[in-house]
Structure formats: C-alpha cells, structure tokens
C-alpha cells in the first residue's frame, strides 16, 4: 500500500505550510515520515527530508532522536492519548526537557511552569501538578504545545491540532500557535482537513489526494482561485457561515479510493467531471501554472478556462 507518493515541498523559517486533505489522503503519514516515525522493517520509503541541507532520514536513530523534539517537534490531534494518564502534566514537560538537555530538576520545573504560563493556562504554579484527566480538552492541547515548545524547535508539525476541540477553543489554540510562531520564528506545518483553518492560518497550501499533492501554492491563490478539480470540488462542498446562503452544495461524486487499490492514471479521474481518456493512462505530475502555483492536472494546466467554479451554487 502506498500511503504517500512523491511528495515534495520546502519551507522557510517563520513560514506556515498547510497540508489539507480528507481522511486517508496521506497527510498524517507524510508528517510522521518527515520525522522518521514511519521507519520500520515493514515499511519502505524513498526520498529525502532535508533539514538545513542535511538528510534527516539517512541519519542513525540516535541522531534522529536528537532532532525530534529539539529541532522538529510535533503536536497530535488527540491530547488525551498523547499524554501519559498517570503522570502529572508538569512532570511530562520536565521529562521532555531533560531528555534533551542536562538541566537540574529545579531548573527544568521552573521552565515547565513558564511554558505552561506561555501557552495560556491560568495559575500555572498549581496546574503544573494536575493530571491530564483534571484538565479540559483545550487545556490538554495547550500542555501538548508546551511540551512541543519546550526545546524551542525550529519546526513545529501540528497534525489536526484542533480537530477534537470546540470551535471557540479551536480559535484560541490557533491564535496561540500564531502568536508563538511570531515570537519564536519557528516554521509551522499545519495538517488539517478543515479548509477554513488552513485558509486562515497558513501562508502556503498543499492539497493532498490519495497520497499525492495535487495542488500547491500561496494560500490565497489555492483557496481563492483554485485550479485543480479536486480543490474546486472541496471548496464547492462546504457551506459557509457568512455570505450568500447556499441552498444546494456541489459535492464531488463518489468517494475517495482505498490506498490499497488506487485507480490507474490520475487517482482522482473516476470522480472528476473534467476527466479525459488520457487521465486514465498517465499519472499527472505537478506543473507550474503561474509563479509559485502548481497543479497535477494536465487538462486544466493546458486550458485554464476549464477550471471549475469553486463555490457552492447559491
């Protein structure tokens, strides 16, 4: 099974890349692989992940372990399963610090309290001794972010960091991430299925379908005037909270393919209204259609007037 297939992108310091796609599109596997977390005897992978020019995936495990956490950190979707239920949250932050740095217990604890304050948890001196179950979902996610930030990473990978949270709390967490990014200058890879989250919080967007990037470019271009039929279809599928009220959505027909049995040629062709004979034969590659904007769809790339409307009919 090919969960991820031929993904390439680069990211500068201080910038945010959004990886967007539906379940099974490979966005989580892509982010785990960047940290070498899918390395196992049963897994094959090819390609390189360059961190300041050094290929991370070819490093021995010990060197890689040093990069994880210290230079690249990760926040996962579900804080309850990522935190140890039987340790106090402060201790878990301390552990993250002491794994990578030789600091005294006292200094590490002081830093943990500081971090917990930074991520906006009220009364950090007492909350540091709370167990995960004593905190709400939003507070737990803040603890996860505190742990991820403990070693001032250069890159933070956030995999659906707010998908388990209510929308008012989601807004708080996303604002927190933006603020911390401004303060530390770290790069952020934000993985989400939510086009709204991606549109509002990223500089650059890569849309994934069936393990491949199908459209990639500046956020306002990919969300504002997308060209790939899949991106257009996604945007036409969602109702909006403002603007003219929609009576009818324009869904993408069919459902996403299984990664075990991908369609021949372009994986999207069975669901694509623009599909031609050639789409069934050849796997499309990303083509530059305008500066910084690439799509994996030769049909639209060669005739931009074919691009679908990206709004639900109102």
């Amino acid at each position, binding site marked *: 099974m090919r969960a991820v297939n031929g993904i390439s992108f680069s990211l500068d310091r201080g910038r945010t890349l959004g990886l967007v796609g*539906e*379940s099974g599109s490979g966005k989580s596997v892509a982010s785990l692989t960047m940290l070498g977390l899918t390395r196992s005897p049963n897994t094959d992978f090819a390609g390189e992940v360059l961190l300041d020019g050094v290929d991370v995936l070819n490093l021995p495990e010990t060197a890689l372990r040093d990069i994880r956490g210290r230079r690249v950190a990760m926040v996962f979707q579900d804080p309850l399963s990522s935190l140890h239920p039987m340790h106090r949250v402060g201790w878990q932050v301390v552990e993250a610090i002491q794994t990578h740095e030789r600091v005294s217990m006292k200094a590490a604890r002081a830093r943990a309290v500081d971090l917990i304050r930074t991520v906006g948890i009220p009364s950090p001196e007492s909350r540091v001794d709370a167990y995960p179950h004593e905190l*709400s*979902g*939003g*507070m737990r996610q803040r603890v996860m972010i505190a742990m991820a930030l403990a070693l001032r990473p250069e890159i933070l990978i956030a995999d659906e960091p707010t998908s388990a949270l*209510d*929308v*008012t*709390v*989601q*807004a*708080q967490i*996303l*604002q927190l991430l*933006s603020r911390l990014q401004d303060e530390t200058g770290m790069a952020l890879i934000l993985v989400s*299925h*939510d*086009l*709204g*989250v*991606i*549109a*509002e*919080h990223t500089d650059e967007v890569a849309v994934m379908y069936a393990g491949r990037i199908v459209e990639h470019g500046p*956020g*306002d271009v990919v*969300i*504002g005037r997308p060209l790939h039929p899949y991106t257009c*279809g*996604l*945007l*036409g*599928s*969602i*109702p*909006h*909270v*403002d*603007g003219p*009220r*929609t*009576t*009818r*959505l*324009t*869904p*993408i*027909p069919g*459902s*996403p393919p299984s990664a075990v049995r991908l369609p021949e040629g372009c994986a999207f062709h069975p669901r694509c209204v623009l599909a031609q004979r050639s789409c069934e034969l050849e796997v499309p590659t990303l083509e530059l259609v305008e500066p910084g904007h690439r799509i994996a769809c030769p049909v639209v790339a060669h005739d931009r007037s074919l691009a679908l409307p990206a709004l*639900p009919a109102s």
Partner: protein
Amino acid sequence: MSAAPDAPLLRVQDLVKHFPARGVTRQRGAVVHAVDGVSFEIRLGQTLGLVGETGCGKSTVARLVTRLLEPTSGRIEYQGTDITHWSRRRLRPLRRQIQIIFQDPYSSLNPRRRVGSIVGDPLRAHGIGGRSEQQRRVAEILQLVGLDPTHADRYPHQFSGGQRQRVGVARAIVTNPRLVVADEPVSALDVSIQAQILNLVADLRTEFGLALLFISHDVSVVRHVSDRVAVMYLGKIVELAETERLFSAPAHPYTAGLLAAVPLARTQGSRRQRVDIPGEPPSPLAPPSGCRFRTRCPFAQQVCTEVEPPLEPRAGSLVACHFPLGGGREGNAAARVTAT
C-alpha cells in the same frame, strides 16, 4: 390522534433532563444538568437547527424528543397531544412517525445484518405491508437515497461511510415519518461526502414535507439546512431566530462569538484578527448562577450573576440576555465581540 388545525407538529416546553453524576471523583447526589428548561416548536415542512458545542445538551434533546430518554420534567406535545408520559406500548404506533438519524454510520448499523433487512426493520416492526410489499418499499427507498437497490443483500462493511449514512437515512424515512431528528448526521463524514448527504436531506425534506430537527456543532452546516436556528449553551437555549436573522445580526454574545470563531475557507485580504470567547464552558455539574454564559461573556455585569435572563422575544427573535447586542445591522454584533 386529531390535531388542532394549526398546532405545531412538535412542541417542547420547559424540558429538563438531569443525570446522576457518575465516576469515583463525583460526590454523591451530584447532578449533571444536561438539559435545563428548553422550549421550542417545529411545524411540518420546517427545519429547526439546534447548534451548540460539546456538552451543551443538544444530543440529549434529540433523545428526549424521540422519547428514547425519560425527561426529568417538562412537556412534549406531538400534534397538540401531550406524549411526555406515554408508555412504551402506547408510543409504539407513534414511532413510525418519529424517526432518528444518528451520527456514526459505523456503530448505528448492525454489522451482521444485510442492508435490506436493516432498512426493512421499521416496516416489519410496525407491520406495514406484506413481505413482498416490504421488499418493494425497501428497494424504492434505497433508490431514493442514491443506493443501488440490488445491493440490498450486502452487509454494512461493504459500503463506504457516506453510503452507510445513506442507509441510516433510508431506515429513518422508510416508514414515511412526519418528524425526523438528525443528530450530527454528517459529522463523521469527509467534506466531499458531507455535501452529498446534506443535499440528500434537503431533497427528502422537500419530497416528504416532513419536520426536521437538525442537530450539529457545525454552524455553517446548520445555516445551510435550517429555516430557524436555536443556539444552546450549557443546557439552555440562549437564542432562537430565523436563520438569516441569527447569522446576519446575532443578538446573544455567545451566538456572536460562536459565529466569529468559525474560520472562513476563503480569502479576504489578510488574516482576520480576532479575539474570541475566552475560556471554556463550565461543568454542567455546577452551572454558574444567573446567566450561564456570564463567566465567558465580555459584557457581563453584576445583574448577570444574580438574575437568570429568560428567553424573551426581541426584534423578531428570542434571546436570553440582559444586554443583547444589536439594534445594529449586519456584522455589528460580531464586531463588538471581536473588539473586546
């Protein structure tokens, strides 16, 4: 049951449901105030959206209205008749008229039964038609919800998530119900599939002219499907209004903050700068005194801690707030919350 000519199909008054608190850390006698005095009505052909965040009691309302849970107090009227305390036996004939669609298309379908028999179940339970008639009806309904009737002998695992939810919809409408309660029917689905199901629900509503109680945490989805929307917070309705009105000029600070918190999948210049509702909802074990939203409300005053605001008519909508927003035109209310 003979209905008063203009009675709403469903009327709910002061509905309350308290659960005993469970778990080792909870003290004895503690009570979860899941639903605490909820009133609304729905007419045939209408859709009422019920929106709110985790734990606000919206799913409990779904289960109370369908009489799957026994209310602590309050009144449920169906076609003008009080059915609040009807026995199971007495409710049976009514069940073909009141149906529910669940959130999870995986756990709500029996994996060991064929789809045709799942969809035909309500027909058999209510003794509607003979065997061949039932089969015909099942095929017809499967067709209607966009499934291949020849797949009736397949099992749920042979279908995708979206198709399974179509099965759930088919089961709910096979008896020609008059009231359908849909509890987060699209929340487990990917957006491209969600749109298919939302269009299906819209079609069925027109086709059957039924009354729909549509429950969701997703305000955009609720806006899309509903004629009127009720916003719930911690067991209470804080605002109830026509959809257009609620979204263009929200009157309750919570509604305004909830709408402002939704990230927009479109580009309008740079990122919006927003300050949102701070904190998180308090525990329904011990709701705050007075107004339940006051602990997070930017406009809360002394009176809000002392007096609980009733749900009162105000400029065409119902609002439970001492200091409702507005008078203003579109966006003003949201802007005021944003500015704090």
